[in-house]
């Protein structure tokens, strides 16, 4: 009898243990399904965020055509007309203050500074009045992180070639207005040509010839070396030189008021 009771109890204990194990397995499977679903959901969400991040904040620009292009070059000419240019220098060569603008044509932060920061007001006020001149110095940042870093020299030489016709800054402004999607390899010959053809006063044939000048490629290289020697590490870097010395703007996209503060330190 005792043996039979004992057997019953053991069988019950076994059954209970099996039930617990089954419940545990089911619970574990539910948990893994929840974790797996959470991981898949998280990845989908992050991919969506990356797509928005890569496309957001960036105008759907690239090369403009038609009335949009006309409006852009009209606005640029209004900003620059009447201001002397010499190569990559904008403004009176005898201006007491020089702002060296270390930039990369494909750099989105440079675009932000040029179009939305204090640059336009600086040109309209201080450059136009002869107080400041701006010298553009190429420094590879965004382009060097793109699929085609070798295009840096080519795009910069295109700007220098326009500078032979005192249109460097029209070309530079156009580039910043019509930047394409970053890291998409949008800077092609067609793109560079398209920018040049939007400048009504640019002699296209002379521009093409000037682009073949090997001195410009050498200038790009020497400008970069000089910038590295100076400690430039990002773009835009804005260095002001004047009678009182040298100072750099600390903000990446300084406002006009912030630029004025730096000018006061050196003028």
């Amino acid at each position, binding site marked *: 009898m005792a043996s039979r009771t004992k057997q019953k109890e053991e069988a019950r204990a076994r059954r209970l243990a099996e039930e617990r194990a089954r419940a545990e397995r089911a619970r574990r499977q539910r948990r893994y399904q929840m974790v797996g679903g959470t991981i898949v959901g998280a990845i989908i969400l992050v991919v969506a965020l*990356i797509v928005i991040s890569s496309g957001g904040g960036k105008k759907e620009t690239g090369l403009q055509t038609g009335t949009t292009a006309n409006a852009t070059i009209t606005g640029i000419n209004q900003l620059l007309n009447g201001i002397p240019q010499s190569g990559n220098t904008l403004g009176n060569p005898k201006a007491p203050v020089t702002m060296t603008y270390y930039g990369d044509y494909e750099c989105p932060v440079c675009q932000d500074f040029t179009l939305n920061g204090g640059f336009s007001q600086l040109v309209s006020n201080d450059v136009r009045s002869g107080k400041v001149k701006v010298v553009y110095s190429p420094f590879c940042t*965004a382009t060097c*992180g793109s699929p085609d870093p070798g295009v840096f020299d080519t795009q910069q030489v295109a700007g220098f070639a326009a500078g032979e016709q005192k249109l460097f800054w029209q070309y530079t402004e156009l580039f910043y207005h019509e930047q394409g999607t970053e890291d998409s390899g949008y800077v092609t010959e067609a793109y560079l040509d398209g920018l040049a053809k939007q400048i009504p006063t640019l002699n296209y044939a002379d521009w093409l010839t000037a682009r073949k000048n090997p001195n410009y490629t050498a200038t790009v290289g020497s400008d970069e070396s000089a910038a590295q020697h100076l400690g430039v590490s990002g773009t835009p870097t804005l260095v002001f030189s004047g009678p009182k010395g040298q100072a750099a703007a600390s903000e990446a996209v300084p406002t006009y008021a912030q630029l004025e503060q730096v000018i006061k330190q050196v003028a």
Partner: protein
Amino acid sequence: MSTVEANGSLQRAGTAERRLRIAICVLCLIGIGVAGYLVYVHYAKIKIICGANGGCETVQSSVYSKLAGVPVAVLGLAGYIGILFSLMIRNELGRVAGFGIALVGFLFSMYLTYREAFTIHAYCYWCLSSATLMTLLVILTTVRLLRAEPITRTPKTVPRAERRRIERRQAARR
């Protein structure tokens, strides 16, 4: 498992869970401080405190500092607060929610760090700190989620007297 052993395991599991929750809470509070500072700097338009060679301004001014017009710091702040609130939900759903938010934060932080290194070519120390915090949070929330095991005990459907007999016999056998 005996009631004594079950209670011991419960205590140990409870202690581990409490420690994990405290660690996650501390990291979230630090993250709220970091993200909160970045949000403040953005809207107050003041200069961000940065190290000598830091590129905080460059990064914070880049197109990658905003997502559909919303500063990324605001999203980070929401993420840290979300993980903190998930600690208050003391069940599987709370643990999964905390893990999910931390995972999204970690993956997106890694993407932004990649952009700093290869696109912007400048580093924001505050952003790197937040990325480190999110990495730690995803580890801790994963551990918390996977370690949460119910203690195996004799089901209450078995009468109490019988449960005690079974447990006494099991103890005696040991």
